[in-house]
């Protein structure tokens, strides 16, 4: 899988297949919501998750996994909050401290370790609700309004 195919998987139009629960569920010290997606063409299967720490609201992650038929899932992208330092090169770290995005890179596939790498810091969002809006747009979920009320006021009540 090359970068073009990875980007195609991330951006291909998708629809929510299994509706997420209305409310976030508390699990240990975080809130969570999980839902499944399917490409509008080709019936490819995906899953998505939202996590947010209960006390540290800047600690969140929204992710998309691809589920190839009969194989283990492959993480494609995660939109993270400003939870702490992040580096691109583990051995020659040049730390960043900001909202950032992890993405699957070709070398990750080649190593078959199913990890993500740092795509970069981002100014696309600075909160969970804006990150979710960005994520929905980037991964191209078309019927999201049937399942999510993206009114920021709702997130403030978390």
């Amino acid at each position, binding site marked *: 899988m090359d970068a073009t195919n990875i980007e195609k998987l991330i951006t291909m139009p998708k629809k929510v297949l299994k509706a997420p629960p209305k409310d976030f569920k508390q699990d240990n010290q975080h809130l969570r919501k999980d839902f499944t997606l399917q490409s509008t063409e080709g019936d490819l299967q995906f899953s998505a998750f939202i*996590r947010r720490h209960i006390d540290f609201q800047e600690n969140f992650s929204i992710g998309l996994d691809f589920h190839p038929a009969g194989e283990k899932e492959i993480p494609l992208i995660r939109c993270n909050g400003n939870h702490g330092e992040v580096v691109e090169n583990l051995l020659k770290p040049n730390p960043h401290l900001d909202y950032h995005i992890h993405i699957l890179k070709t070398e990750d596939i080649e190593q078959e370790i*199913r990890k993500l790498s740092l795509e970069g810091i981002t100014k696309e969002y600075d909160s969970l609700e804006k990150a979710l809006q960005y994520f929905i747009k980037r991964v191209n979920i078309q019927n999201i309004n049937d399942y999510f009320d993206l009114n920021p006021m709702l997130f403030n009540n978390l």
Partner: protein
Amino acid sequence: MKEILALLQQQSNQKIGLREKRPNIWQVIIPFYHEDGDMVEVFITPVGSLYRICDYGLTLMRLSYSYELDTPNKERIFNTIISSYNIQNEKGNLYIDIETDHLYPALMQFIGTVLKVSNMRLYKREVIQSLFFEMLDEFIQTQLAKYQPQKDYYPLPNMPEYKVDYCFNHRKVPIYLFGVNGAATARLTVISCQKATARLTVISCQKFIIEKIKFRSMSVLESLDCLGKKDQSRLMSVADKVFPEFNEFEKTGDEYIARELDLLS
């Protein structure tokens, strides 16, 4: 050697810091990273005369992106990891309280533990699945010993590739038990059962099968999600009984075998 030591001491001095996350909660800035580049999230906060090194539940939150602690085996491994390093768990918050004199080594141990927990998803095949068979064996050899189970039974003497994990065979019609912890073993189970079933249609083996390979089969899954839907379907189409979780087998396996043997006797 002195040169290397000096380099390490010099570099380590420059590589540790603290950032105030919240009042009296300090995030440790230290070059230990997860594989995706995120720094390990560790905090220090004063607790009386001690310091508490903790993660505020962020290790388990991170783990939940790709892995669930949703079986007793997984919880057991998780608890073994943290207790081995004297780490406490309070509603997902991993922590250790330590005197000031031992703060640095405790911090290093804590980070090591966090990384081990974070990599639990990599243990799935190597550790957790092998534990499943250990637990299955322990349960059968103790709780089901009264049925005289025979481990690693070969119904077809000249075909060792068709192994039954356990045979409860002291009655006329034996019960074959297969442990299944993944698609590979499920397929093996299917192949074994299909092979025996297929033999029923082979005239040359009919007498042998009727006399020697009449059996009931049951499969015990480590968990239902260890199989994809197609493998679940394959398994359920050939097995007489499927226990979808090891827990379920622990609860009702004894009663089921007793009932089956009673019916078959």
